[in-house]
């Protein structure tokens, strides 16, 4: 890896290690409790979610041969939003010890991405068709969500608005343990596809002629990638920009070779979200800002500046 790559990893590790120290003072009798029971699990959740979104974004951009693809491209986030809204409107609170909003969002995310993955698994489907199906699922789920909001009362509306901003919840270590298996299976699979994705850089047909089982690759990437994303958005809502920004950031700073791009998108994604969450903790005195607001506020200008600089040189 280049020196820039090593620096980027070191910076990311520093953010991940230092983030829990950011915020109101930890002095006093409750300091240890705040640190170990609130901040550390939140950093862990942020690292899991950010890493998953960053890596999945990089993989989906490769699979769809499209720099605008994000983890939400296949309808995962829209499905999760629809599920969560349905739960909020119906007013259920918990099933099997799990918040019903989380369970419903997870189910919605899986249902939406399953449609896209099934289409992708058909050999005859071109990748642009798969992308169009993803957009159609996203639009349909979005329209249903708006319809649901129309029928909701004020408190459900407020809760749904809050949910759709994207936030890192206080889920404690239990939440980390519930999320981790999905994230580990998903990211492990995606990282193992680096060679296939490297061949896909010159198009599906050439990759196939080079020996890549394109159908298997895209089914695995979309199916298991969406599984990890579903587990994340179910708990955290749609967190904007991480999946789009982070892979581009890595490309512009270090390079676009899949072998480097994938693991760095994972690490930088984790650090970016955890760092944004630390900022969200201190941005407004006395209350947390939803982290989705910070990722978008920082992410959009950062991406524009980087692209403008890359075009100049």
């Amino acid at each position, binding site marked *: 890896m280049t020196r820039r790559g090593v620096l980027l990893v070191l910076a990311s590790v520093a953010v991940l290690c230092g983030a829990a120290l950011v915020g109101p003072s930890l002095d006093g009798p409750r300091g240890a409790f705040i640190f170990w029971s609130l901040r550390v699990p939140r950093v862990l959740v942020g690292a899991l979610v950010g890493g998953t979104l960053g890596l999945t974004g990089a993989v989906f951009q*490769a699979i769809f*041969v499209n*720099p605008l693809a994000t983890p939400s491209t296949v309808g995962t986030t829209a499905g999760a939003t629809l599920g969560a809204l349905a739960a909020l409107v119906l007013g259920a609170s918990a099933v099997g010890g799990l918040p019903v909003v989380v369970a419903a969002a997870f189910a919605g995310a899986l249902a939406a991405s399953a449609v896209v993955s099934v289409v992708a698994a058909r050999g005859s489907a071109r990748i642009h068709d798969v992308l169009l199906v993803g957009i159609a699922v996203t639009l349909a789920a979005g329209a249903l969500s708006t319809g649901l909001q129309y029928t909701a009362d004020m408190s459900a509306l407020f809760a749904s608005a809050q949910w759709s901003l994207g936030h890192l919840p206080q889920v404690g270590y239990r939440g980390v343990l519930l999320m981790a298996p999905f994230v580990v299976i998903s990211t492990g699979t995606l990282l193992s596809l680096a*060679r*296939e994705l*490297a*061949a896909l*850089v*010159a*198009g599906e*047909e*050439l*990759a*196939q*002629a*080079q*020996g*890549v*089982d*394109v159908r298997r690759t895209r089914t695995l990437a979309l199916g298991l990638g969406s599984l990890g994303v579903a587990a994340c958005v179910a708990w955290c809502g749609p967190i904007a920009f991480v999946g789009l920004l982070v892979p581009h950031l890595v*490309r512009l700073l270090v*390079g*676009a*070779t*899949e*072998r480097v*791009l994938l693991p760095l998108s994972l690490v930088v994604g984790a650090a970016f979200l955890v760092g944004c969450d630390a900022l969200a903790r201190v941005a407004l005195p006395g209350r947390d800002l939803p982290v989705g607001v910070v990722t978008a506020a920082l992410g959009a200008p950062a991406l524009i500046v980087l692209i403008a600089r890359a075009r100049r040189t």
Partner: protein
Amino acid sequence: MSELRLEDVIVEARGQRLIDGVTLSLARGALIALVGPNGAGKTTLLRAALGLVRPRGGHVTIDGEELARLSARERAARLSWLPQHVFVTEAIPALELVAAARYRFREGRRRSLEAARAALERVGAAALGPRIVQELSGGERQRVALAGALAQETPFVLLDEPANHLDPAQQLEVYELIGALWQSGLGVLLVTHDVNLLAQLGDAARVTVVGLAAGRTRFTLSYDDAKLFDELGALFGLELSVVTLGDRRVAVAARSVRS
């Protein structure tokens, strides 16, 4: 003897017959140039030979084995392909693009890079390795793409209009390079519009020219056959003037005689 064989191949798309019963046999070390007007089915035939389109009828076999029964990796061990255009979506160095073509080998990264460097060297493009593919000229990019096909280490290479969009000097260079690779023992199936470039391959008597029109074989002749240019004229709907330059014949389109 290693052989790629297409037997009575029929390809259809949306109810239209694109290839209508073509039989072709390419031995290792042989070179077949597929020529024909636009829409004759040259590229489709190449794609059928690669297994990228499934024929409606007939058989594609390699060394007697049905292509459709082979896994993608097994096919990639026998056939490599240079498409008409190689679009690369990521800003990656040429060396990485060539190394990615080594997918069929289950090997470590160091080995892939070594083989990629060797392939670039074979096409005279060793210096291009660190350059970003998207910043290369058309001719340089074509060399790098050809290096990718070579890095696959297959007995057969299928080349689709390898000199398309290149300037005349680059066209000659690419054809000389293909000639050298062929002479080194590869089986080459080559799609082209431009028959004059075939003279650059060397050893004209061993170059087989197959004329394709409307999905059917119109003729199969050696490049040095006296009848070749008459047949080509009929194939393209042209009156060809043939000029002799030194030891080679060059065809010049005099006028269109398409009805």
